[in-house]
C-alpha cells in the first residue's frame, strides 16, 4: 500500500526533472540550473561559517602553545607541530577518559534500547491494570532531568552508595521517558493485522514482539539508539555531579574540568576537544542516511 503510493510521484518526478535521461538511476547528472547554482553557493557560504570554528580548533591544535596565544592571532600555524596532540596522550588521562566514555555510552545505549522498546510496546499494545496511570507518570518524567532535580538525584545515588562508580554514572541515564514515548508512538502505528495473524497461528506476546514487531521497528530503534549514544557520549552535567575522580571521568568532563584546572593550554584543549568529537562525527558520516530515515520513521518529525 505504502509502496504503491510512494512509487507514483517518484516516477513522475524522475520523468519530469530528467527528460531524456534513460534509466533514472543514481548515475544521472542533473543540469546546473541557475537556481541550483545559487543554492550551492549559498550552502557553501553557510558551511564555511559552520565549519570555521572547527577548522580554527584544528589549526590551533597544530600550533605550539606560545604561538596559539600570539597577538594578533592568525589562522594557519607558522610552524606546524603535533606537540599538543602528543602532549595530551603523554600527560593527560585522555585514553582513560575515552574508554570510560565508551563503556558508559555503550552500556547506557544498550539498557535504554532494551527497556524502552519493551516499555513502549507494553504501553502501546498490551492491557494491564493501572496502565493509564503509569503512562501519565511517564509523561511527568519528560519534565524531569538531572538539570531540574540534580541535587535530590545526587543524594539518592549517594544513599545507594553509587557515587564515584560506573553504576552511578550509567544507571541514572537509563530511564529516559522521552525514548519510551517515541517508541510508544511508533508501536501504536504498526497495523494490528500483522500481530493478529501471528496470534491465530498460536504465537504468544513475546514471540510476536521479537519476531514481528522488533524487525519492523529497526529504523526507529536505530534512531533512538544513535540519539541515546550521542546524548550519553556528550553528557556533561550528570557525570560532573557524580564523580570527582579523574580516573572515572568521561571525555567531556575530563577535558572541561581537569584540563582547565592546570590553567588553560589552548592547543592541548583544542586537540582534546577534537578527539572527543571525532568518534561521533565518524558515526554520523556512516549512518546519516539511517539517522534521517529514523527521525522520519519514529514519528518524531511526523506527529
Amino acid at each position: 500500500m505504502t509502496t504503491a503510493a510512494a512509487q507514483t510521484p517518484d516516477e513522475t518526478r524522475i520523468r519530469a526533472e530528467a527528460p531524456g535521461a534513460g534509466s533514472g538511476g543514481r548515475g544521472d547528472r542533473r543540469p546546473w540550473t541557475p537556481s541550483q547554482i545559487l543554492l550551492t553557493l549559498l550552502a557553501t557560504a553557510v558551511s564555511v561559517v559552520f565549519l570555521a570554528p572547527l577548522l580554527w580548533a584544528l589549526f590551533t591544535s597544530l600550533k605550539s602553545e606560545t604561538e596559539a596565544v600570539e597577538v594578533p592571532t592568525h589562522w594557519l600555524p607558522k610552524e606546524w607541530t603535533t606537540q599538543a596532540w602528543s602532549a595530551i596522550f603523554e600527560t593527560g588521562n585522555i585514553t582513560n577518559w575515552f574508554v570510560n566514555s565508551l563503556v558508559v555510552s555503550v552500556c547506557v545505549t544498550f539498557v535504554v534500547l532494551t527497556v524502552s522498546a519493551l516499555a513502549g510496546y507494553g504501553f502501546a499494545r498490551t492491557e494491564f491494570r493501572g496502565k493509564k496511570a503509569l503512562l501519565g507518570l511517564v509523561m511527568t518524567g519528560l519534565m524531569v532531568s538531572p538539570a531540574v532535580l540534580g541535587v535530590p538525584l545526587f543524594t539518592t545515588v549517594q544513599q545507594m552508595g553509587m557515587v564515584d562508580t560506573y553504576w552511578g554514572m550509567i544507571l541514572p541515564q537509563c530511564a529516559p521517558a522521552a525514548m519510551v514515548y517515541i517508541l510508544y508512538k511508533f508501536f501504536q502505528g504498526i497495523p494490528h493485522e500483522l500481530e493478529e495473524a501471528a496470534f491465530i497461528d498460536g504465537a504468544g506476546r513475546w514471540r510476536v514482539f521479537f519476531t514481528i514487531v522488533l524487525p519492523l521497528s529497526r529504523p526507529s530503534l536505530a534512531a533512538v539508539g544513535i540519539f541515546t549514544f550521542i546524548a550519553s557520549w556528550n553528557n556533561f552535567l550528570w557525570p560532573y555531579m557524580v564523580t570527582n575522580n579523574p580516573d572515572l571521568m568521561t571525555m567531556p568532563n575530563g577535558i572541561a574540568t581537569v584540563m582547565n584546572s592546570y590553567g588553560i593550554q589552548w592547543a592541548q584543549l583544542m586537540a582534546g576537544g577534537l578527539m572527543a568529537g571525532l568518534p561521533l562525527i565518524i558515526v554520523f558520516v556512516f549512518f546519516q542516511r539511517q539517522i534521517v530515515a529514523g527521525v522520519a520513521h519514529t514519528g518524531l518529525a511526523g506527529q
Partner: protein
Amino acid sequence: MTTTSAQTVITPARTRTAADTVTVRRKQGFQHGAWFVAPFLVLFALFVIWPLLRGLYLSFTDANISGDATNFIGLDNYREALDDPLVWESLGHSAYFTLLVVPCITVLAFLLAMLAHHIERGKWLWRLCFFAPFLLPSTVAANLWQWLFNPGTGMVNHVLGIETAWLTDKSYAMLAVVVCTLWWTVGFSFLLYLAALQGIPAHLYEAAKLDGANAWHRMVHITLPMLRNITGLVLALQILASLQVFDQAVVMMDFLPGPEGSTRTFVQYTLEEGFTSYRVGYASAISIIFFVIIAAVALARMWLLRNREEGGR
C-alpha cells in the same frame, strides 16, 4: 495434499478471527503487559520518581550534603527562596537565554533544512556540515567558543575587526553563550525539519505546479502548513532544553557565574546551593520550584495544542 490441509486449517480460522483474536490478545496482554514495562519502571522509579519525591521531602528540611542533622522546617525554604534575589535573577537569566535562543534556532533550522532539501548535489555533505557541531560535547563547543571570543587572541574580534570584551562585559557575556548555543544545537532541529520536509508527499507540489502556483505560493500554502506540527515540536523541545541551560554557560565562564553573575542560570544556582554551599534542603526547594515552572510550560503547550486542534475542526 498439503494445499488442501492448509486450506482447511485456514478457512475456519478466518471465520473465527473477530471474536477469538480479541480475547486471545486481551488475555495474553493481561498476563504479559506488566512484564513488558516492568524493567523500565524499576529504573524510572529509582532515578526519576524517587528523587522527585525525595526532593519534595528534603525541600521541607534543612538537610546538608551529608544528610545528617536534618530538621523539618516546614515552608521556610520556600519563603526564603521567594525573597532571594538570586533566585529571581538566575531565573531571569534562563528566561532571557530561552527568549533569545528559541526563535533564532527555529528560524535558522528551518532555513537550513530548506536549503539542504532543495539542493540537488552533495546532500550528504551539507547535512554533515550543518549537523557536525551538534556531535561535539557541549563542553567542547563551549571551550571552542570561549577561545573564539577571547578578546586578544580570539578569532571573532579578529575577523570582525572589533575589540569587544565578550566574556568579561556583563552586557555581552550571555550573548556569547547564545551564539555558541545556536552554532552548537541548531543541527538537531535542522534534522527534524529535514525529515519532515522529506515526508511531505511530492504529489502535492506536482498538483500545485499544474495549477500554476509559484514557488512562494507553494511555500505558504503547502510547505508551511505541512510543517506546523514539527514546528510545534521543535519549539517545545527547544524551550524545555533552553530553560535548563547549564553546560555552555558554566564552561565558557570557567565554572564561575560570569561577569557580575550575568550568566548564572537557574540550574547553576541550584547546584551552587547544593554542592558549594552544601544546603541540600534549600537547593531541593528551588529545584521543586523549577520543576513546577517547567511542568507549567509543558502543560501550557499541551493545552494550547488541544485548543488549536479543537478550534481547527
